[in-house]
């Protein structure tokens, strides 16, 4: 009884994870510019990985694999949003920089975040990420 329930939930989570992964991939292909694409990839990637690993954890049972999957989950939870953040930030440093009013969604310590002068940065760093 409890086994079939667990495998049902885990199947549901795996299916949802695959669905979000797919929507993320479609988003990366179809969205018009760098930031929307990165949004599609970043958000769905974290959520889908979370769902898939949780689904796998439910089937693993009480074992070492469960513990390892939990560690991977924790790791992805830290690294995946950070990677998206770093990507968006480095895009702000090159010619993909957004106009001022939309990048003002960054309230903490203006002296430290705004001080690197963007014009001094090289323009060739990320350019190809948005054109294909």
């Amino acid at each position: 009884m409890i086994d079939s329930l667990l495998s049902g939930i885990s199947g549901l989570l795996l299916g949802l994870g695959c669905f979000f992964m797919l929507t993320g991939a479609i988003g990366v292909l179809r969205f018009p510019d760098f930031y929307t694409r990165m949004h599609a990839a970043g958000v769905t990637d974290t959520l889908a990985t979370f769902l898939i690993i949780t689904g796998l954890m439910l089937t693993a049972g009480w074992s070492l694999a469960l513990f390892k999957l939990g560690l991977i989950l924790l790791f992805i939870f830290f690294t995946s949003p950070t990677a998206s953040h770093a990507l968006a930030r480095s895009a702000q440093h090159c010619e993909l920089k957004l106009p001022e009013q939309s990048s003002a969604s960054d309230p903490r310590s203006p002296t430290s975040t705004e001080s690197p002068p963007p014009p001094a940065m090289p323009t060739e760093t990320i350019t190809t990420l948005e054109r294909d």
Partner: protein
Amino acid sequence: MELLLDIALLALLLITAISIAGIKDLLAAAMLAGIYGLLSAGFFMTMGAVDVAFTEAAVGAGISPLLIVLTLALCGRQQRGDRQRAMLALFLVLPVGALLIVATHDMPAFGAADAPAQMHVAPHYIQQSMAEIGIPNIVTSVLASYRGYDTFGEVVVIFTAGLGVLSLLMRSQGIDEPTVEPAPNAQSRDIVLRVIAKVLIAPIMLYALYVQFHGEYGPGGGFQAGVIFAVGFILYGLVFGLDAVRRVASHGLVQFLSAVGVLIYGSVGLLSLASGKSFLDYSALASNPVSGQHIGIIAIELGVGITVAAVMIMIFYLFAAQLRLQPRGPSLTPDHQGTDAGTAHLASQQQGAG
């Protein structure tokens, strides 16, 4: 199902390889090389070669794209086209590829029992490993003990590669050292990256130690552990700047350690030679041959790990110092961070394999 997975992985490998050859932008090619490494790691996984898959994930998908990106930061990301040379390369590659494809017809089928690789020494390794070496992971016992001589050669190759990079970039290093001006951009100002890096570096190091000392029981060993350990340092260097990471492990120390690893490996060999057995025959190290093997394997894996980690960190130091000499250097740092998070991803993904 297995066949379907194999076909999908191989098709993706083919597509990635062709797009690497076709793409003009070298940074994108470096990223694709990382994807190629990850895909081949997955392919090795389906073939059951877990140790090789782990090495491929750590080296091919993890640190080598990072080093390539550092190189591109030094010498520019645009490919300088040379049509004639490309045609020459194509003329060379096509016949060689055709010959290789023809040669596959004479190869035994995958996993065939009468293949030469299965007939010669492999049965001995599989049947006697537990009695002679006494560790569960046969791959480690073959790599570290039966084929210890070959592994010694591999470590020396890595050490030599480190020496090569050192001798090429050492000159500018010497100029750079006395006039260290605190570059304003050398440290990433981003608080998210700094906090996350601080949170993650300790688990990465711990995982490297786990891989190092768990190599006898599961997939892992000195090579993978060394790379993961170095990634921890490189992550610190990318986020907090070269000066900060040099305060933790100075350039001289890293240089010294890269030689110490080879020295440990070689002296284990000489020790067994001194006790009357042949070179790298660890059974001479203790009164009980099996525990001698244990001691020997742990010692040489430690040597491998130290050399690999030290050489990788040293190459990063040299590249980063070179990059700082160029005025436009540090601005690439946030870009590297993305690559490195990818590396860390891989490190975590491989925990499942262990």
